[in-house]
C-alpha cells in the first residue's frame, strides 16, 4: 500500500529521505501513473502551442518565398497576376473588400442580434423564449456553404428591388449608386454575412443579458421605470462588454468567411466606389477562387494573403478574449 508509506514518510523528515524525494512527496506526483498522466496532458497542451507556432512559422516561410519575387508592392498593388514572368500581386483590393464587407455585416447584425437577445430574455412570452433560443442555437450550426447556396440562388434575386430603391433615393451619395448589374456586390456579401453571424452574436449576448442582476432590475421597476428604462439602465450597462466581445467573435467569423462570399460575390480585381456594383474581393474568397488554377508560386502568393488574414483575425480575437477575460467569474474547480 503506497498510501500508508507516503503518509508516514511525509511529515517528519526521516533521516534517509533526501531533499528530492521530499519535494516530490509534497507535490503528490510520486506515482508513475500520475507522472505519465501529467506528462500526457501537459504534452497535449504544449502540442497546441506548437501547432499555433507552426501555423505562423510555415505561413511566414512560404509567404516570404512568394514576396521575394513580387514585382509589385504587396500592400498597394491593385493586381493579382502571379502567372506573369515577373509576378505582380498585392492585397489592396482584398483588404478593402474584407474590411468593407465585415463593417456592413457588423452594422447590420449587431443591433438586430442585441434586439433578438433582449427579445428572448426580456420580451418574449416565457414559453416562447426557450424554444426560440434553441432554434437560434441550431441555426448557428448551419454550414456556411448552405448559406452561400441560399444567398446566391434565393437572396440575390430578392435584392433587385432593394438595390433599385437605394439607387433612387440614396444614389446621390455615390456609395449607393447602382448601374443595374446583378446584385452580387459587397453590400450583398455584407447582408449575407450579417445573417450568418447573427446566431453567434445573439447566443453570446443572450447569455450575458440573462446574467444581469435581477435585484437591479426589480429595484428599477419598483422606482417606476418602464421596461425599456430598466433595460437601458441596468441590463445594457451590465451586458456591454459581453456584447462587445460577442461582436468581435462575429467579426472574426465574418472576416474569415470563405464559401458564402465565394458563391455570392462576382469578383473583380478593382475597388468599386459604390457598394452596389459588383466587384472587389476578400482574402478568403480570393484564395478559394484562385487556388485551383494556381501554380506552386501562385499558391505561395495566396498563402501570403492568408497570412495577412491570419494576423488580422488573431488581433480581433485576441482583443475579444481580452475583454471577456477582464470579467471572468469564479468557477468551482481548483484552477
Amino acid at each position: 500500500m503506497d498510501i500508508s508509506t507516503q503518509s508516514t514518510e511525509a511529515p517528519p523528515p526521516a533521516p534517509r529521505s533526501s531533499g528530492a524525494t521530499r519535494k516530490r512527496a509534497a507535490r503528490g506526483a510520486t506515482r508513475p501513473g500520475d507522472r505519465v498522466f501529467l506528462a500526457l496532458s501537459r504534452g497535449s497542451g504544449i502540442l497546441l502551442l506548437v501547432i499555433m507556432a507552426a501555423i505562423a512559422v510555415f505561413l511566414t516561410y512560404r509567404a516570404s518565398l512568394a514576396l521575394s519575387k513580387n514585382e509589385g508592392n504587396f500592400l498597394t498593388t491593385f493586381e493579382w497576376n502571379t502567372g506573369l514572368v515577373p509576378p505582380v500581386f498585392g492585397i489592396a483590393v482584398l483588404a478593402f473588400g474584407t474590411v468593407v464587407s465585415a463593417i456592413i455585416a457588423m452594422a447590420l447584425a449587431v443591433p438586430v442580434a442585441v434586439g433578438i437577445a433582449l427579445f428572448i430574455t426580456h420580451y418574449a412570452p416565457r414559453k416562447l423564449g426557450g424554444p426560440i433560443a434553441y432554434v437560434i442555437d441550431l441555426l448557428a450550426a448551419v454550414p456556411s456553404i448552405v448559406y452561400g447556396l441560399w444567398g446566391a440562388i434565393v437572396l440575390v434575386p430578392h435584392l433587385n428591388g432593394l438595390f433599385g430603391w437605394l439607387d433612387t433615393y440614396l444614389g446621390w451619395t455615390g456609395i449607393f449608386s447602382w448601374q443595374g448589374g446583378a446584385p452580387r456586390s459587397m453590400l450583398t456579401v455584407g447582408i449575407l454575412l450579417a445573417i450568418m453571424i447573427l446566431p453567434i452574436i445573439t447566443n453570446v449576448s443572450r447569455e450575458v443579458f440573462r446574467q444581469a442582476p435581477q435585484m437591479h432590475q426589480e429595484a428599477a421597476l419598483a422606482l417606476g421605470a418602464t421596461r425599456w428604462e430598466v433595460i437601458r439602465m441596468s441590463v445594457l450597462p451590465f451586458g456591454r462588454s459581453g456584447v462587445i466581445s460577442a461582436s468581435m467573435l462575429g467579426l472574426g467569423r465574418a472576416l474569415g468567411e470563405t464559401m458564402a462570399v465565394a458563391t455570392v460575390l462576382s469578383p473583380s480585381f478593382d475597388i468599386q466606389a459604390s457598394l452596389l456594383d459588383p466587384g472587389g474581393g476578400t482574402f478568403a474568397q480570393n484564395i478559394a477562387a484562385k487556388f485551383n488554377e494556381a501554380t506552386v508560386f501562385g499558391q505561395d502568393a495566396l498563402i501570403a494573403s492568408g497570412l495577412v488574414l491570419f494576423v488580422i483575425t488573431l488581433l480581433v480575437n485576441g482583443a475579444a478574449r481580452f475583454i471577456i477575460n477582464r470579467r471572468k467569474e469564479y468557477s468551482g474547480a481548483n484552477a
Partner: protein
Amino acid sequence: MSNAPVTRKHASTLRGGSLPKWSPWAIAAGSVAVGMGVSLAAGLDSKIQWGLIAAIVFVLGTYVFAARVEGRRQAKDRVATSLVWVCFIVAVVPLVSLIWETIKRGVKVFDTYFLSHSMGVVADAETGGGIYHAIIGTLEQVGIASLIAVPIGVLTAIYLVEYGRGKLARAVTFFVDVMTGIPSIVAGLFVLSFWILILDMGYSGFAGAMALSILMMPVVVRSTEEMLKLVPNELREASLALGIPKWRTILKVVLPTSIGGITTGVMLAVARITGETAPVLLLVWGTGFINNNPFDGPQASLPLYIYRQYSAGTPASTDRAWAAALALILFVMILNMGARAIARWKAPKTGR
C-alpha cells in the same frame, strides 16, 4: 363599492391613460396593410421592400399613438418593444427562408438512388448521380479529424482544469481562445504549406482531416474545460481522501461525472467541422469517383460537392447541390439535436 375615488379608476392621476391591450396587434395589422398597399400602388415586386415599409410604419405608428395617449416615457418603452419585435421578425425571416428553401428545393432529387450512387461519369448537365462518394469522404475525413482532435483536446482540458497553474496554463488558455477564431481557410493553407508544398505529399482526405482537426481541437478543449469545471470539488476530494492517485481520480471520478457534457461538446465540434468547405477545397481537391482510401488521392466531401455542383451552374447540378445541402443540414441538425439531448439527459449534478 361605495367609495367614489376607487371606482373612478380612470380619473386617477397616478396612472395616465393607457392604450388597450390589443393595440400593438392592431398597429401591426395596420402597418402590414399600409406596407402592402403602398407596394401594390407603387408596383414594387420585392417582398423585402414590402416588409421594410411595414416595419417602419409599425415603429412610427407605435410611437405616435403611444405618445398621444400615454406620454413620452411610455411611448419610448413601446417603441423599444416594437423595435425588439421587429428585430426578431427581421432575423427570423431569412433563417426560416433558408431552411424552407433548402427543404423545398432539396427534396426534388433526394432519394435512395441519390444517397447510394456516386457522380462517376455523370456530366454536369445530366440528371442522375448522387452523393455516395461525398458521404464516404466526409465520414472518413471527419472521423480521422475526430480521432486526432478529441484525445488531444480532452487531455489539454484536463491539464488546464486539474493541473494547470502558472505561465504555461495561461498561455495555453489564451492560445486555445485565439485558435477558436482561426479562419478555416487559414488552417487549410497551413496544412497546404507544410504537408503538400514542403513534404510533397499530394492531395488526400488525410490532409483535409488534419486541417479539420486543427479547427476542432479548440472547440473540444473549450467545452470539455467547461464541463470539468462543473464537477464539484467534493467529489475529487472524497476520492483523493480515500488514497486514490490523482490520475485514477480523474479517470474514474471526474471524467465519468462529466462524460455527458464532453460527448455533447465533441458532437457539436463534429457538426461544426462537417460543414467546413474551405480546407477540403484546398487539400482534398474533390473527385466524382468513389475513393475509399483517405490516405491516397483526391476524395470528395459533402460541402465541396455542393460547391462544385453549384459552380457547374446547370439546372440538374443545381438540383443536386440543393439535395446535398439538405443531406448536410439533416446530418448536422441530427448531430446537434442529439448532442443537446445528451446534455440535458446527462447534466452533471452541481453539488447543491
